[in-house]
């Protein structure tokens, strides 16, 4: 007896890792040029693509570059010449290509790249964390974040639709947690090529974007100065703003063709009657949802606001969802310096006056492979509930490092 995995008419169920999901999505998008350089925990992506290419399943120029800086430079140029491109990296690779990452955004090249989140805090680490994303947050790229392997695949496909949209033309980086998603094998619904072609076909009906071609009498990479430079920067800022609504629209189109919607810039989970909300992103959200369901059984009115678009910062969408909530706990998988709290917490705090009295606290967790366990999430929810009930609560809590909770006065003389 043959047990087929449940199949829909236009897709196939596979049990694959987040990395394999990214590679398959890249393959389905039919890129012209792919640059491949390995770095833990992304390596399987480029290995899969190499295999597809070696078996004639992917008709692209595959460049096995000697380092990440070359990877971004190669795909940036190929993109400006008119090609659809793909590459992937992580942490140290992302910062090694940083000059080219900036140039790509400045040139408005519609590059799509996967970044598998891993620590780059200045300590050599091969472990999960979002510091690499935080280190490059204002590079001018659109940043999207996936919660599970299915969303990895879906976001990579949506990234092409977004980056190459004539009204946008901004490079897009799809982030997902290294180790927790990159190596996680889950059930993923993989669309057939025809469906993906249909989803991306609308891009062909647009006006043609500017390309660098022989005899075209157009150049890229000229010097910008004064008003001319300001014009380009303002256009970039505006395009980023437009990408918010565009991402919502793409989410709806995706639902129509593939049957899956995630809510656009943010996903609100059990938020309607919630008093207390956790704000998070990435793989932690799966765990948080499980704990929320358990807490709801106990009568705690808690919800999750999952941030899917990180840049541009979805301020309006977050305010709309969070307004009037009694207390908000923001979970950061990274650090920033000089503020009392993590990076996403401080960014949300910029909107505090629009939240109509919501109180906020910051949780630092999940750094360098420390696991955001169900117990940790329970602590975060209980603490935020305490805040809602008017108790005095620390503004920032390092969930897995109690030493951080010593007050500064007690820590005089330490490094």
């Amino acid at each position, binding site marked *: 007896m043959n047990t087929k995995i449940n199949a829909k008419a236009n897709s196939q169920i596979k049990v694959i890792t987040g990395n394999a999901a990214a590679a398959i999505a890249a393959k389905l998008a039919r890129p012209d040029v792919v640059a491949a350089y390995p770095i833990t925990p992304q390596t*399987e992506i480029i*290995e899969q693509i190499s*295999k597809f*290419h070696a*078996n004639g399943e992917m008709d692209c120029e595959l460049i096995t570059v000697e*380092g990440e800086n070359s990877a971004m430079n190669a795909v940036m140029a190929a993109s400006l010449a008119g090609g659809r491109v793909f590459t992937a990296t992580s942490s140290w690779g992302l910062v*090694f290509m940083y000059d080219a990452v900036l140039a790509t955004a400045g040139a408005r090249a519609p590059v799509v790249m996967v970044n598998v989140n891993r620590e780059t805090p200045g300590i*050599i680490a091969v472990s999960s964390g979002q510091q690499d994303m935080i280190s490059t947050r204002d590079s001018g790229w659109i940043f999207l974040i996936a919660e599970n392997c299915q969303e990895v695949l879906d976001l990579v496909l949506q990234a092409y639709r977004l980056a190459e949209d004539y009204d946008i033309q901004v490079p897009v980086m799809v982030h997902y947690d290294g180790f927790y998603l990159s190596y996680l094998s889950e059930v993923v619904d993989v669309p057939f090529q025809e469906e993906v072609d249909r989803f991306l076909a609308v891009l062909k009906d647009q006006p043609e974007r500017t390309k660098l071609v022989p005899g075209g009498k157009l150049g890229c990479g000229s010097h910008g100065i004064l008003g001319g430079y300001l014009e380009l920067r303002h256009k970039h800022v505006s395009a980023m703003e437009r990408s918010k609504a565009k991402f919502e629209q793409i989410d709806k189109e995706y639902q129509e063709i593939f049957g899956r919607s995630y809510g656009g810039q943010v996903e609100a989970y059990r938020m309607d009657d919630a008093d207390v909300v956790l704000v998070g992103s990435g793989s932690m959200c799966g765990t948080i949802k499980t704990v929320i369901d358990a807490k709801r059984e106990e009568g705690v009115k808690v919800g999750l606001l999952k941030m899917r678009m990180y840049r541009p910062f979805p301020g309006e969408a977050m305010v709309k969802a969070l307004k009037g909530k009694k207390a908000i706990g923001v979970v950061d998988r990274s650090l920033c310096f000089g503020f009392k709290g993590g990076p996403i917490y401080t960014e949300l705090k910029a909107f505090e006056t629009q939240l109509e009295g919501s109180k906020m606290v910051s949780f630092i967790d999940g750094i360098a492979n420390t696991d955001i366990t169900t117990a940790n999430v329970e602590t975060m929810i209980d603490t935020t509930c305490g805040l809602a009930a008017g108790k005095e609560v620390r503004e920032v809590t390092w969930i897995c490092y109690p030493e951080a909770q010593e007050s500064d006065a007690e820590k005089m003389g330490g490094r």
Partner: protein
Amino acid sequence: MTGKKKGKLTKVLDYLKYEDPFSKGVAFCPGCGLELLVRFIPQVLGNDIVITGTPSCSAPVLLGQNNQSWHTLSYFGTLMTGAAANATGLARYYRKAGIKNTVVCFNGDGTAADIGFGNLSGAAERNEPFIYICYDNEGYMNTGIQKSGTTPYGASTTTTPFGSASKGKNLRRMNLALKMAMHKIPYTATATLSDLGDLAKKLLKAKEAKERGFAFLHVLAPCTTGWGYAPENTIEVCRRAVKTNYFPLWEAINGKIRMTKIVKKPKPVSTYTELIKKFAHLNEADLQILQDDVDYEYCMLGGLSVLEAECQLPASLED
């Protein structure tokens, strides 16, 4: 030069004047060429070398974890992208401060030939006073066996896999050691693990040359997991690499090349590849391309070493 086997072994042991500073039971695969090399170096050069290492197959052992380490050498854990520049900084400061030192910048071929080549070349061009040792396992092994610039023609790796539309790597390897010799540095040499006496001598020559500037050693260090051969065959793989001229042994003083071992009747490269699974998919015609590349490189090497008599180092450059 040839002695009885027992005599040869004794000679090698004579070079191991110092303790092995590495602990037992460390995270190397059984049969790892790199492990043999990294334990060998401080036993020849001393436990007071300052060694730099990068993310690579050596990293889980060479770089510590939090506040613990698997060896007692002073070390600097850094990134591939600037390893030679870090080593430069160390060596230059020690020189300024009059601190006697041997800085060993220890990297795989991924770093040396690819992502870190720019700063390696820069350090050599400036004739920086340290020893750069490249252990060549012909690929990015720690991330799971991807190709590098030194991966030979035809090899199947995870970025050049053998498939229905591919016969493995379709680019010839580049000759890293020759490139480094062209920097005219005080000492360049190739070595491998089947000729440990030769390796020891070259390590000592590099240490001495470091007093005058940059020394570069290129050591073929096979990888049992990545290449696909039984762990007990590591030494035999090296031996055949030398006997087929796949990996000739030579040295260069100020860029003047001298063969340190001449293989009188080189065997066909197929006697080397037959031991190694990453070549198993190649047919005769494919192997001929690899053979041609090996012969071509050897011819270039031969040509350069023959010119030795005609290339006199200008008096003004002699030290």
